[in-house]
């Protein structure tokens, strides 16, 4: 099945992805040309190949589908995703994986600021580096960064886990480096294998919440 977005509208593509007819099908999307809302709300086990760059919110609220973007992705990639997999061959803009609950997001290139903001359970693996304020208020889920992390990573983080291979410019409020135990090496190896990245898990450091801000304390007011 092919959708050429120079001939068919986004609405046709998305309606098809919501219909039972898309189950177990392979869908190729041609000429996305930076279109917004490509393949949003997909809810069948299907494979979607998007050949080109996409705009805002590609693969948002995805359930079950495997969506590959052969290009770069605009802001809000895979936001609030529930399950399935999204794989971007290029770079991703701001807020990729925002509030996402489940599934796997792989960005081969870099991800911009606020990657994994308010993450609620999804796994994100970034081949390159991430921008500032990534994993802000991340609740649960895992963020793996093979490159570097910009300023204020993990600010106000809850129970999400962050693994970074390169340098971290600075940690946000209440985010600390934590010891990496056997269980962490195992989960990290499994995540890297799923993303088909060849780095060794031992090259990464782990970060998470110091849990000092979990209950309001006026003595912590200067931290905010």
């Amino acid at each position, binding site marked *: 099945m092919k959708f050429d977005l120079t001939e068919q509208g986004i609405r046709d593509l998305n309606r098809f992805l919501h219909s039972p007819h898309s189950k177990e099908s392979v869908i190729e999307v041609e000429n996305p040309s930076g279109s*917004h809302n490509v393949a949003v*709300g997909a809810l069948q086990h299907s494979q979607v190949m998007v050949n080109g760059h996409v705009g*805002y*919110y590609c693969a948002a609220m995805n359930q079950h589908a495997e969506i590959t973007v052969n290009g770069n992705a605009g802001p809000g990639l895979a936001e609030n995703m529930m399950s399935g997999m999204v794989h971007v061959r290029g770079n991703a803009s701001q807020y990729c994986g925002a509030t996402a609950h489940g599934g796997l997001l792989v960005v081969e290139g870099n991800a911009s600021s606020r990657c994994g903001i308010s993450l609620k359970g999804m796994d994100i693996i970034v081949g390159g580096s991430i921008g500032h304020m990534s994993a802000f208020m991340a609740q649960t889920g895992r963020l793996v960064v093979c490159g570097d992390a910009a300023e204020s990573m993990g600010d106000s983080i809850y129970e999400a886990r962050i693994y970074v291979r390169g340098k971290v410019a600075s940690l946000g409020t209440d985010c600390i480096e934590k010891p990496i135990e056997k269980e962490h090496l195992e989960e990290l190896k499994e995540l890297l294998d799923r993303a088909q990245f060849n780095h060794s898990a031992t090259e990464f450091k782990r970060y998470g919440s110091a849990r000092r801000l979990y209950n309001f304390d006026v003595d912590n007011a200067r931290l905010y």
Partner: protein
Amino acid sequence: MKNNVDQSWLVESATFSRPVIREIQRAAREGIYDIRGFGAKRRLPTFDDLLLLGASMSRYPLEGYREKCDTQVTLGDRFAEKPLVIETPITIAGMSFGALSAQAKEGLARGATEVGTSTTTGDGGMTPEERQHSRLLVYQYLPSRYGMNPVDLRKADAIEVVVGQGAKPGGGGMLLGQKISDRVAEMRDLPKGIDQRSACRHPDWTGPDDLEIKVQELREITDWMVPIYIKVGATRTFFDVQLAVKAGADVVVVDGMQGGTAATQDVFIEHVGIPTLPAVRIAVDALKDLGMHRKVQLIVSGGIRSGADVAKALALGADAVSIGTAALIAMGDNSPEYEDKYNELGTSAGFYDDYQDGQDPTGISTQNPDLGKLLDPDIAGRRVANYLRVMTLELQTLARAAGKTNVRNLEREDLVALTVESSAMARVPLAGTNWIPGFESTQ
């Protein structure tokens, strides 16, 4: 006063009144600002400052109890394939499961459904009980996205993108740890017992141009079936309403500063935003300026208490109103029936506003299962339905007296103001004059 001191010569400071002195001393003692529920308690210009002009020689009234006065309103027919049709222009505002007990949410749903109107979810997502008992359920899309998922999104009859609320425009929220039960924690993907911050900004858009794409995303996911509302707290209302329309809203919801909250700093509740009275008029002006009045519907909320408030809001140009605090009061909040329990908490019926504490003796603003059981959803639902019916009858009474066959035919020309302030804010003439302060009348 001890020792029979003669009080007749004592003068209380208007600047440092006894409540002000008490608050300074509390702040000095505790080192933390006051967080509470309810809405603004300060005196503000309200709909009480307006009067309706009944029919007389130049207008023709309708017969009470006989001639029809329609109250049905259609919301969201700009783009949605399935707009909402409500039987009374009074809806139930968004209030979260978490802030309220499951029994309270169910009571609101039952009451709204009984009279053919809609109810609204809140931060924390949609509960099965609420969906089951709501014929028309508006699903809020909030910055925290707690409990947000596409399955519930597709079960909604409308989606309300919440940019802000009247009690705290520009502010987020905090559900304190003591109200985080196992169920609330699970719905919000956070551990039990920790404070849950509700963000003040959406995580994946930052301005009106982004919001337009966000609205399109929500339409795409729901196949353009249901209306999309955009809710703002009343501040820079003219611009906010116009930007909401340009972002593609089917319905704009404007919440004035009297709007309630479950937990916000007192300083925020009392000092940020504008009252509902000017907000309605400004919102209508914004819609008219775009030629979109009645094409994009306007719902107003914040301190609506009676059919008279509804009539005046509609006369100023709103299509419907929402109630929150008043609906809780209808279910039993602040009832003298609970006076002993309120006294144990150091307060009294009529003054209780500690919704954030989770110790509500009525079982409404709590997650304590033992307290929640005290509220029977069936009885609570009937009270809400009764209250909505009374408000609707009051509205019809006033509309008929003004000669209107449809409550939305009430118009600004049917109103006069009692005070200079309300005249300026509502842009209706001061009673007995043609004068609207700050506005050059063409009359």
